[in-house]
């Protein structure tokens, strides 16, 4: 008890030692941030521009800065096409949409939908599902480690952390064989379990830090007020851990969303995710770069939306400690 009190006073006294930066240093800092943002945005802009180029423009050298935008990449991404004779195409009824028209210009007709949408849906299910699992399990485990006397707690925590010390791909072959035996290869469940296993260690460690920061007096007060520990956990601890949960969820989601190696090894058909699928988009006579870029652009959107939605929580995480607890 008394150590907690002194720690609280120590943070309170240092909380006011922040010096307001001068206007010049603010401007310099702003310029650096903008420069950094521009540099990191270049690849994204490049991908987006490629996605709206026509295939010849996309591989022209020197690269074209000015070009006529085309939806061909997006059309090719979502469809499969077959080549036909000009006479056959001329005999067809007028095109029924933009993609129809774009395809016919290349002497092709749309044969059907591509596999992109199902692959993208797989990515959504697997990434969000594994994130949900990893964060739920991680929160409960972190709470346990933070609040209870767990036998060998330090060893267990180290063991959990140690699973991150090796590149996951090092165990790819054993996992591949195991999954074959268990019938988990090329299933969404298998991929979810795998990503959960990788992420849960990160989740436990990150969340333990956040939960350690929540004074246990809150739960004790709730328990005295007539709540069970589990009810106190949901009513008092979880609302105060939202910041940490949001940050952890973003990290887990980004990993699961972007994972390529396991996905290409363990999935090929019905459970294939978008990352191994996108590079396999092949056009006629070579890689269909605008379609690949279109797939990448669309692939970026969910992470972008998720991060923007949780931005408030993340920002609050930075200022949380400044509020009197």
């Amino acid at each position, binding site marked *: 008890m008394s150590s907690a009190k002194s720690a609280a006073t120590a943070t309170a006294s240092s909380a006011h030692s922040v010096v307001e930066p001068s206007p010049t240093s603010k401007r310099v800092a702003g310029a650096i941030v903008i420069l950094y943002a521009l540099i990191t945005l270049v690849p994204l802009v490049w991908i987006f521009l490629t996605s709206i180029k026509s295939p010849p423009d996309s591989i022209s050298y020197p690269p074209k800065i000015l070009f006529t935008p085309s939806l061909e990449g997006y059309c090719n991404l979502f469809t499969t096409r077959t080549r036909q004779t000009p006479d056959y195409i001329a005999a067809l009824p007028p095109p029924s949409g933009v993609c129809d028209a774009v395809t016919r210009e290349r002497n092709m007709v749309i044969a059907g939908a591509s596999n992109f949408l199902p692959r993208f849906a797989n990515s959504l299910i697997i990434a969000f599902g594994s994130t949900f699992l990893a964060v739920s399990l991680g929160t409960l485990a972190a709470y346990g480690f933070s609040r209870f006397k767990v036998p060998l707690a330090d060893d267990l925590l180290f063991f959990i952390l140690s699973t991150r010390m090796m590149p996951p791909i090092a165990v790819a072959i054993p996992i591949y064989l195991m999954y074959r035996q268990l019938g988990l290869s090329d299933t969404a469940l298998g991929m979810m379990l795998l990503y959960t296993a990788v992420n849960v260690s990160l989740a436990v460690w990150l969340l333990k830090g956040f939960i350690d920061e929540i004074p246990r007096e809150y739960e004790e007060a709730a328990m005295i007020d007539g709540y*069970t520990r589990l009810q106190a956990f949901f009513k008092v601890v979880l609302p105060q851990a939202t910041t940490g949960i949001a940050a952890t969820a973003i990290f887990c989601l980004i990993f699961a969303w972007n994972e390529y190696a396991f996905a290409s090894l363990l999935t090929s058909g019905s459970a294939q995710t978008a990352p191994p699928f996108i590079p396999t988009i092949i056009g006629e006579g070579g890689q269909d770069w605008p379609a690949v870029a279109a797939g990448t652009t669309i692939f970026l959107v969910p992470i972008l939306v998720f991060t923007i939605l949780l931005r408030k929580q993340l920002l609050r995480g930075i200022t949380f400690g400044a509020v009197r607890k």
Partner: protein
Amino acid sequence: MADVALKGVTRSFGDKRAVDGLDLHIADGEFVVLLGPTGAGKTTTLRLIAGLEKPDAGTVEIGGRPMNGESAAGRDVAFVFQQYSLYPHLTVYENLAFPLRSPARRMDKASLDARVRQVAKMVRIDHKLENRSTRLSGGEMQRVAIGRALVRRPSIYLMDEPLSSLDAKLRGELRLELKRIQKELGATLLYVTHDQIEAMTMADRIGILAEGRLVQIGTPREIYANPANLHVAARLGQPHINLMPADLLPGVAAPAGTRTIGARTEHLEISRARQGSAGLGPDGNAEVDWIEHLGDQNHLHIKVGGHKLVTLADPDLPVEAGDRISVRLKQPLYFGGDGQRLA
């Protein structure tokens, strides 16, 4: 409300005994203050009653019912913590309603609302019910924390230095309010503090804790006037009690075995030494070292031989630093070699 009894309660952390064989009975409707320095076991005692700690030995009884094995939720006590007292993600209203919304109580909406508003008025926070609890001043936060305990009618209120983080003025105001509310409700209240003024002004009985043991318990008057030993005597009184060898000052016949004499302001008789007296003997046995002016009274620092004494003096007393004065004892407290009171 109910009475609470601790019988031989012991709780150790590692090899340190935080509470050591504690016997304490708090009568129904009584306001008991536990006074002691940091680490005396005050907070642990409260936590043992609340069920947040389990005793290694002994029993806690609430309303005559042994509480061993009963969860915190099942004990029907209310606890005010020293800090971290409000749920930061809730408004003042929600904080006050939180105990009433618990599954153990499940009060209906209308009576819950009435209860919350009544208590908010009692602790004078009814104008800020919709505020976020983090947007309150320290005094308001603590009033809400006390209010959150008061919305219930538990068998006992437990308060762990609820006023210690407040400034002196607020502390004085809330002290009065708390005592008034306790009287109005006829509440059984166990209050823990290291502030002797809080103990003296609010308590029906004060218990002095040291190293996990209850050293003495009694009315504030008893504890102040008849301390059982040096430790208790040193806890109360402002300025601090003067401790001196038995033969330092004249005016008393110390009982046999006296090692130390304790003298508060009321045990010291000061008069100005006559001009020309040499210093030894009843006239002019001491020298005024310096004077602290407090306004309504002065702190007089006196040197007697190699000893320094501090006493209160009337600001009109015509002495200055360096003056010779004579100091006599008047019915002081006598302590033996083991620190126990002799007379």
